[in-house]
């Protein structure tokens, strides 16, 4: 895998918690999430429904929609001029100069986020002139064409209406729109879930090419762990609103330190490696309104101990580059990664 040049710290998330406030009480969608993102790094965020990954990504840029509210924690943005800003208490006005200029987002089904009655070029111009009012309409349209060309889309598409373009093309144009102001960070929330696997490859290869040229960091959210393993430098796994493991992709793949990571990894049938009987995770994801005491994954965990049912594990460093939240990693206990059946050999056999 081509190694990326990873720079200084760009974003520091500390103890971020987001609740959904309802008439029946608060539901904790994200609970005490912490991680660091460096410039030029690709961080993958994996999880299934109810894991909180989408909530976390929107909360990062303070884009969460009511009834989601940030109830605690900090999101520290390290500007390239050395200033550190906490995004959480900032108002929309204060965030305006950061949004899109430094921090951009491509949302889930972004292809539906286009105004169906306006031409593509016009929508690009709106965004560009919003962030640089001095730009003339002619210049903005020119730049719109440039951005489309960046994603390999013909320039004449600036005159197209969204419905005249395929889903894949719309998605690519929106990704290039996110790059319009040359941001430091692009958050992508399931950008390829709605497209086919070949289009996904086209889109991601162009994103990566642009990433190499422009050097922005990416937070990539998806449920498709197999895609993330090929794509990201570091990987964070979320379950029931918590980050349960985070570390380099190769580490998490070969030596997962949390039973959920291992089970999730083993949920993807291999393409070429010899076929074996595989099993998913029994049970269902927990109801966020009624989280059990102790570890949220314990009811479904093959290796749950008594301690797991009563004490919630903290996200702690368990090896040089990996943090995990699991009692099995306590120094006295046998870590998850050990044991012949947990490691994956070079050929992908469960040894």
């Amino acid at each position, binding site marked *: 895998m081509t190694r990326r040049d990873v720079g200084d710290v760009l974003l520091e998330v500390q103890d971020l918690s987001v609740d959904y*406030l*309802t*008439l029946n009480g608060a539901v904790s969608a994200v609970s005490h999430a912490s991680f660091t993102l460096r410039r030029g790094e690709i961080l993958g965020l994996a999880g299934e429904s109810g894991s909180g990954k989408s909530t976390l990504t929107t909360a990062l840029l303070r884009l969460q929609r009511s009834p989601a*509210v940030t109830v605690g924690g900090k999101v520290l943005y390290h500007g390239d001029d050395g200033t550190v800003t906490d995004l959480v208490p900032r108002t929309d006005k204060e965030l305006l100069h950061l949004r899109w200029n430094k921090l951009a987002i491509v949302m889930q089904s972004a292809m539906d986020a286009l105004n169906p009655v306006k031409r593509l070029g016009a929508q690009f111009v709106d965004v560009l002139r919003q962030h640089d009012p001095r730009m003339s309409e002619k210049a903005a349209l020119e730049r719109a064409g440039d951005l489309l060309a960046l994603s390999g889309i013909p320039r004449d598409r600036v005159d197209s209406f969204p419905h005249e373009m395929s889903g894949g093309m719309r998605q690519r144009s929106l990704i290039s729109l996110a790059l319009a102001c040359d941001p430091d960070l692009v958050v992508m929330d399931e950008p390829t879930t709605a497209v086919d696997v070949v289009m996904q490859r086209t889109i991601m290869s162009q994103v990566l090419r642009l990433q190499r040229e422009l050097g922005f960091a990416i937070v990539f959210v998806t449920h498709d762990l197999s895609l993330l393993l090929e794509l990201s430098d570091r990987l964070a796994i979320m379950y029931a609103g918590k980050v349960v493991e985070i570390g380099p992709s190769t580490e998490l793949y070969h030596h997962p330190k949390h039973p959920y990571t291992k089970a999730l990894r083993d949920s993807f049938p291999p393409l070429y490696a010899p076929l074996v009987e595989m099993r998913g995770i029994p049970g269902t994801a927990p109801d966020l309104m009624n989280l059990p005491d102790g570890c949220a994954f314990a009811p479904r965990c093959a290796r749950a101990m008594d301690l797991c049912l009563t004490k919630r594990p903290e996200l702690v460093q368990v090896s040089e580059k990996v943090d995990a939240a699991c009692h099995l990693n306590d120094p006295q206990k046998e870590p998850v990664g050990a044991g012949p059946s947990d490691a994956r050999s070079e050929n992908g056999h469960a040894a």
Partner: protein
Amino acid sequence: MFTGFLHNRRVQIGLAAFGLCAGIAIFGDLILKVYGFGPLDVDYDYVASAPLRGGHLLGTTISGQDVLSQLIAGARGSLAVGTLSALLACTIGALLGVSAGFIGGAYDTVVNAITNVFMTMPSFALTLIAAGYISAAGGPGSAGMGWVMMAFLIGIFEWPGMARYMRAQTLTLRGRDFSMATKLLGEKTWRLVLFEIMPHLLGIISARFLAAIMAGILAEAGLNFLGVSTGGVISWGTMITNAQNQGALTLGFWWWFLPPGLAIAVIGTATAMVNFGLDEVTNPKLRTGNEKVVRAFLRRQRAEARAEQRTAVTASN
């Protein structure tokens, strides 16, 4: 889904208001007996008197008739017209709409055409013309059309909206996977419509029926005001019309036309509430119940932030 409908605050308020009116209409006679004054009784001692004099809680009309009494009696008249027109509109609308949605094809095209014709007719104008003929047919001095005829005229122009709505709902349900899956199981068509699809429609039909009743009440008042008379039946519409005709406005007898006007306004609001409630239930994105909780939370958050800043400032001094 429809228990949610009943729990919705707006719906509860709307239904409560409507229930109150219905209750008054049904138990009107009882209430009037307790009250003491009949709607047509003339009290020569208190003619056109302001409220709370001589036992007349809402005063009397220029003919000495008790306003509150008429209001209570009028509830029945208004409700009768509203209910009958709603029955007519919903029955025709549901029958035509659901069948068109289900059978489709040429039948659907024909029904659509008929619906369109009725929909584009200027209903009020035509009702007035029809009312004119019907009244005239009874000869000079006749009591105008009966309330049944008025209900019929209202309903006959209301059914297209209902039919269109029902057709759209039916099409949606028919296209749903479960509909197809049940058909591919071998379920007979009539059973599919009656037992699988109808239950989804019933809730919607009930809500629209209620709304139609209330729309009928409003229409009746409007028609009355425009001069279509319904003979001796008292309704809120007739009250307002009479008040207007006999100069209550110019003479300042507010207690005569205000109560029925308010009653109609309350009904109108109740209709809107029920409709909003129905919208919220069918489209969860419109739910706003949580907004209050969120706003309260954000207010608290901002207050805390300000308090912190203040302590930080005082601490640094």
